[in-house]
């Protein structure tokens, strides 16, 4: 893998995420633990950015702050043109519903729902009629290679298949930003690789950005850039020249 140092997203593409001097800590008074200590980061549309770093470096906290599910303590955060800290809690919820897709480490599929129903959840949350939502989710499940598993419950699917359902769920609502938290942590090397290939192949679009939190160096090759976090700060961001952007 060939990487070179770069700190900013490509200046020619509009920024999907712009983080400037963001701080976040947990606890109060003397027990307060600072987790983000002035993070600066840009993510461009059409880009896949991997957020790497040791445990406790603040990767997941940064992801949560970008998603608007944790409030930052200071700094500026603009996501898809919206200043997240200025949004009310309800507006943040609406923003996530309309613009974001999520892939979780534990997949967090709803056990009693079939693969198609799970993949349809973001559309159902948006108020789409169930039949339409499931029809659209079924299309996406075909795209991720689970066309023959649409009526399976999560318990009947392998880890890799569950992650593909989670990918379908993240994509079904056509979000402009996809946030992935350790998407390959519970998968073996081959399955993890396949999941990232799939995400790159059908998820990567010029009008969409992806941020992937990971420890897994085997998937670095799927990133456009890799941001390395250390002790609550972005230590460096490297362009991955091994990728073909054509």
């Amino acid at each position, binding site marked *: 893998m060939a990487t070179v140092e770069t700190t900013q997203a490509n200046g020619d593409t509009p920024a999907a995420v712009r983080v400037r001097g963001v701080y976040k800590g947990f606890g109060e008074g003397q027990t307060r633990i600072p987790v983000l200590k002035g993070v600066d980061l840009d993510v461009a549309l059409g880009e896949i950015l991997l957020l790497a770093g040791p445990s406790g470096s603040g990767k997941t906290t940064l992801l949560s702050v970008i*998603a608007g599910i944790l409030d930052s303590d200071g700094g500026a955060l603009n996501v898809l043109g919206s200043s997240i800290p200025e949004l009310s809690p309800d507006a943040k919820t609406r923003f996530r519903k309309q613009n974001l897709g*999520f892939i979780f480490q534990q997949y*967090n599929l709803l056990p009693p729902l079939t693969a198609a129903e799970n993949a349809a959840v973001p559309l159902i*949350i948006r108020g789409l009629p169930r039949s339409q939502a499931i029809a659209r989710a079924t299309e996406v499940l075909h795209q991720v290679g689970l066309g023959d598993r649409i009526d399976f419950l999560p318990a009947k699917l392998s880890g890799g298949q569950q992650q593909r359902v989670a990918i379908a769920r993240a994509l079904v609502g056509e979000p402009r930003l996809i946030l992935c938290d350790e998407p390959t942590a519970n998968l073996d090397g081959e399955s993890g690789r396949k999941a990232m290939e799939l995400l790159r192949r059908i998820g990567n679009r010029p009008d969409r950005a992806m941020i992937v939190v990971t420890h897994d160096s085997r998937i670095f090759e799927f990133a456009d850039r890799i941001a390395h976090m250390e002790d609550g700060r972005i230590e460096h961001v490297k362009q991955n020249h091994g990728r073909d952007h054509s």
Partner: protein
Amino acid sequence: MNYIALKMLYGDRTKYLMLLCGLSFSVMLTVQQGSIFWGLMRWSHAGITNVNAPVWVTDPNINQVEEVKPLADTAVTRVRSVAGVDWAVPLYKGVLRARLADGNYQQISLVGLDAATLLGRPAIVREGRIENLRAPDAVALDQWAVDRLGGPQKIQLGTVFEINDHKAIVAAIVHTQKSFQNIPFVYTTYERALTYSPRERRKLSYIVAKPVAGVTPEQLARRIAAETGLGAFTAEEFGWKTIVWMLKNTGIGVNFGTTILLGFIVGMAIAGLTFYLFTVENLKQFGALKAMGTGTGMLARMILLQSFTVGLTGYGIGVGLATLFGWMTARGGTLPFVETWPLLALVFVALLGICALASMISIRKLAKLEPAIVFRG
């Protein structure tokens, strides 16, 4: 989202069944015990309901129907003189002993009706004719008396036995409501009842009356009480007076009330706790929904839907089981079981309250839930 909520509810089958069992059991116990209690209360004033009279005139210090305080014989004419009385007739009521041919004794509740009119007669006659009471020594037994005195094989029309050493001949078999004391009813004429009864200075137990058209039983009772100084009640008022006396003096209310309350509390506590655990164990799922853009209001609606769905299902099953119990065990009136809509409504409202409370605790938990929980592996 309703679909997802219900799928989540039904998906965890063990907890769903636990919830359902807790609620159903609680509702069944409450309705069953409440219905038995109310059945007993109905039995407590069977002496009133078995005599079809709209107004009862009594001693002014009467407490309940079984506590007879005899009136002076002149009271009948005084009552008849009150404006608005259509008819007023004497009624004897007393507990006596019947003796069978085989020498066995059995307590009976003897009711003496006005011979001319037979007013206050039971509504249902199974065998014979009630008018036959006018024949010498004639009495009418209710179905319980037939059973107690030896059963249908021994006790038939024409069977002879003794009441307080006086001859009695079965002239009719009637149907009545069982009494709280479980003493069977025997009907005869007023005058014959006086001959059966022990020697006393006063023997007129009650006067039963009916208002003329245009006067309500309540109005007539008030007039009689005001003009004669006697006690006067509608049948319903006298029934309630008897029920209140029973509740105050027998401890039955506390007894049943404790059982009902404990059954309700235990059942509902199990259900509430299980529902809370159900929510807690699904926190990750709720967190994921919240992260994906489900608002707290929507999650609250999902919780309420789950709670009320299981609540209403449990209510239906519980009431169904209690009704089945009543139908199986209380057929023919051998056990007190009266399922009334106020009881069902009360249990329903209480159940809704518990569902709402259990929901509120869960909703509070979800409102505080940080969706970031889903990012913690």
